[in-house]
């Protein structure tokens, strides 16, 4: 295993030199930058990074500036996975041929994409990359919506959320489709390590990222990224909303090792009702009308069922 950063407390963590600078154009309160910093700070190794078209990309490499102090590539919306896979292939070729500029340094290859880029348009590219077994990490910045283009629904948008393409209205409660279960899909690829993380639970997240970096092969990370703009909460509440998200189990934190071994990594001391999570966000405001109350109940039932499933999977060890 290569050298990994020891993180003892938040102070040392926050004062570590950054390879992702705060000088970027992301919205105030955007969780993307917190997630990216936590991923990059989990290693001291060299990095080759890619970003899918999206909020992160348009906000961090606007010519002639960049927020990234590492090699970085953006091709398009759908192919951030294949971009680093190509780089990883070149790394292997040049290593074999003895032509690497710094032959003793082994980089980490990390791709970032939003949920639209991952669950929807880039799904095939991710699947191909994982099937081929490239030694890379793919991180989905999951804010459950096409935020960069103004809030259209994606395959990650939960039932009941009002988006610009699934707006709540007189006869609609918003998004009607179930959120895609990317964790199970990626685990089913036989990935050595798949994990769901939240930036507010930074110790849990750092541990998982380091586990992911230590694994050989394609690693998938689904990172909850609370979106002040599209979830519609005040910019200073990102961490508060994130805390309720994990404590209500809307975003359970768990990992799947080798495609089967599931571990729950965070058990809330007090499980908060889903209703309290929804109440913090403008995108769910309409659910509190009497005619939509059944959707809140459905969301709670779904969360309960999923939590039950995760616990059973964990016990079963299969």
């Amino acid at each position: 295993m290569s050298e990994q950063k020891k993180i003892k407390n938040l102070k040392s963590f926050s004062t570590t030199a950054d390879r992702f600078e705060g000088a970027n154009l992301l919205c105030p309160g955007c969780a993307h930058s917190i997630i990216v910093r936590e991923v990059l700070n989990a290693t001291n190794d060299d990095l080759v990074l890619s970003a899918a078209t999206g909020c992160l990309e348009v906000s961090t490499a606007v010519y002639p500036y960049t927020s990234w102090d590492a090699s970085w590539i953006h091709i398009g919306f759908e192919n951030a996975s294949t971009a680093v896979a190509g780089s990883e292939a070149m790394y292997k070729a040049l290593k074999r041929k003895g032509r690497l500029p710094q032959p003793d340094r082994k980089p980490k290859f990390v791709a970032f994409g939003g949920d639209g880029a991952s669950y929807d348009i880039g799904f095939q590219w991710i699947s191909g990359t994982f099937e081929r077994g490239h030694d890379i990490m793919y991180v989905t910045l999951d804010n459950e919506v096409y935020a960069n283009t103004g809030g259209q629904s994606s395959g990650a948008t939960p039932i009941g959320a009002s988006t610009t393409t699934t707006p709540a209205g007189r006869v609609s409660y918003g998004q009607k489709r179930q959120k895609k279960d990317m964790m199970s899909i990626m685990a089913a690829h036989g990935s050595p390590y798949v994990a769901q993380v939240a930036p507010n639970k930074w110790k849990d997240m750092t541990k998982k990222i380091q586990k992911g970096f230590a694994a050989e092969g394609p690693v998938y990370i689904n990172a909850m990224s609370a979106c002040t703009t599209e979830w519609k909460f005040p910019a200073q509440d990102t961490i508060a909303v994130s805390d309720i998200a994990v404590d209500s189990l809307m975003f359970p934190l768990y990992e799947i090792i080798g495609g089967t071994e599931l571990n729950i990594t965070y058990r809330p001391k007090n499980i908060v009702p889903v209703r309290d999570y929804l109440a913090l966000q403008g995108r769910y405001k309409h659910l509190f009308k009497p005619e939509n109350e059944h959707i809140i109940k459905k969301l709670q039932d779904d969360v309960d069922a999923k939590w039950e499933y995760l616990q059973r999977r964990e016990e079963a060890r299969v």
Partner: protein
Amino acid sequence: MADKMDLNDVEVWDGNMAASQALRQVQVDVVSAYPITPSTPVVENYAQFLANGYVDGEYVMVESEHAAMSGCIGASASGGRVATATSSQGFALMVETLYQASGMRLPIILEVVNRAMASPLNVNGDHSDMYLGRDSGWIQLDTFSPQEVYDMSLCAFKVAEKHHIRLPAMVHQDGFISSHTAQNVTTLTDDEAYEFVGEFQPMNSMLDFEKPATYGTQTEESWHFEHKANQHNALMTAVIPEVEKTFAEFEAKTGRKYKIVEDYYMDDADVAIIAMGTTVETAKLTARIMRKEGKKVGVIGLRLFRPFPFERLKDVLKNVKAIGTLDRSSPNGTLGMLHNEISGVVIENPNIPVMTNYIYGLGGRDITVEHLKGIFAELLANAEAGKRLQPIQRFVNLRGPELSFFK
């Protein structure tokens, strides 16, 4: 270390094998590819070379042509030699990434085995895919035979990878007519071919951790225009001299002479057919026959399609009285692309020739010496009359009643 292959001085290769062998000889570092008829054998042959130890780069078999070029982009930005192959629908799926590859100035080589575009589905050769790539910022070299596929592939690497060029290049060949027709190909030894192209010299590699590189930034109205203009400028000013220099070096090494505009019987030609692909060979044969009958006919074959060899064409066409432009792609609502582009050249000459446009060969439909004789006869009649005697655009060897437009 890859094993070397002992080649005969003359091998019997089809166009696909010629392309595969060129890729092997230059020892591409990463091939990221997806199969499609008729270019599939290019990567199949390459896989066999790998399986037998003749190649020691990475061969990444991806899940689509879009991913193939995406992988090539990531690999090329990481400082090594990169190539792939495709055709038709696969080429169309790649189009988004073609622009991204050229915009990032990555010297990727793409072997394009030209094929028709659906619908209706058709696996045979025409130039619809080639035309689809013409605005994508790539260098496009065209070939008329397997020998030329081999030679142009070697030249393409040498030109594209030069640091003042750094543009991706396509090498085109006609589906089946060139790709699946075995012919004699005079070879270079592995050492000669590798030395001719030279060792890959990385620039701005993402794997140089002392100097991290950024690829594919965001530029809005502030800088986008300058980037695109810069790329156009490189295509317009740097590529043609470099291609001509490379052709001269290639001739010195092999004795085989290439020109960015190939011209046959043009010194005193009254009329000329302008074509691309294997049709150039058929037109050459037709011209040879008609020359014996005393007809002053000539043929132009576009070797370099992008950047467009405007000055050279202007010069070679300055004395012709009538030109037939042969487009092997459906113009879908206008004149053929080649026709429009050649018209834009000859209008700069003092004597503007009579221009006619022939749409032919779609989906692999044959074009024969007899068809070409007919076209030459029409051109000669136009030249003699000093004006066009038929509609501007005609369809050649089409079933049903004659189809013509722009009367």
